[in-house]
């Protein structure tokens, strides 16, 4: 067995040991994971962002417009001193402002308009029969929206309607949990397969 598999296998076992209790081996592995992953992000960000997107085009191709993000980035480092800390608020303003600007139409479209228009369907079918699913959708949507209505206390008839909304919410949470169990288990199964076949060679 090669050294890579031994190390990966041991580290896998050590991380699992956290389930029993916090222990020195786990503490060591945890600290190593944090350290190595920070180091990894540092290197990847340096090569993919700073070199490829900033320094190369700026200094080799003389794309002068890149001076703007260069300075925005440098301003961020102003946080190292109390005197220059105000400079860092400019790049933060750029991020927060542009993020908010793009969020308005995209959130409105993807989260609100699209979801809303997909809910509309006739409550009677052409043959005159009741469209139960359609009614469930409409009642569910309206009552859940009533739950999210903050201007009124949940009392009386309105309160009862909003409470109906919470039942729909609970159906959603239960359903999601049920469906997500699978994806949570599959990573575990993957790790066990690695441990049993690659590391311990018990199964093939």
């Amino acid at each position, binding site marked *: 067995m090669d050294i890579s598999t031994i190390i990966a296998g041991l580290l896998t076992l050590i991380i699992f040991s956290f389930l029993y209790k916090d222990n020195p081996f786990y503490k060591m592995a945890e600290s190593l994971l944090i350290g190595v992953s920070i180091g990894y992000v540092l290197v990847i960000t340096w090569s993919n962002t700073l070199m490829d997107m900033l320094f190369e085009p700026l200094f080799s191709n003389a794309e002068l417009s890149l001076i703007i993000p260069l300075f925005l980035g440098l301003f961020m480092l102003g946080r190292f001193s109390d005197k220059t800390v105000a400079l860092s608020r400019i790049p933060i303003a750029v991020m927060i402002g542009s993020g908010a600007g793009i969020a308005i139409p995209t959130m409105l479209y*993807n989260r609100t308009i*699209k*979801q809303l*228009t*997909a809910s509309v369907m006739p409550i009677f079918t052409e043959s005159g029969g009741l469209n139960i699913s359609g009614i469930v959708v409409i009642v569910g949507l309206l009552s859940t929206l009533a739950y999210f209505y903050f201007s009124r206390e949940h009392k009386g008839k309105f309160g009862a309607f909003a409470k109906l909304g919470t039942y729909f919410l609970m159906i959603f949470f239960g*359903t*999601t949990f049920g*469906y*997500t*169990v*699978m*994806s949570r*288990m*599959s990573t575990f*199964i993957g790790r066990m397969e690695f441990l049993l076949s690659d590391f311990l060679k018990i199964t093939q």
Partner: protein
Amino acid sequence: MVTTYDPYLASHQMTAMIGGLRGAAEYEKLLGMKGGGSRGMLAQSAAHLYVIFLIVLGNIFYFRNKKKGARQ
């Protein structure tokens, strides 16, 4: 992760989806091959049953303690 995309599927922002391991197994069956998906199904069923068992067990404990509490 399946339910994350459901609304997008229904609102036609996405056209099709292969959901989870079961979806993978069904897809494999469709293509007529045997892969990790079908093998994983057994483990998946076991995992689901295990979670059902835990939920039921949790409720048995809960109602037993409640009864005890009521008697005292």
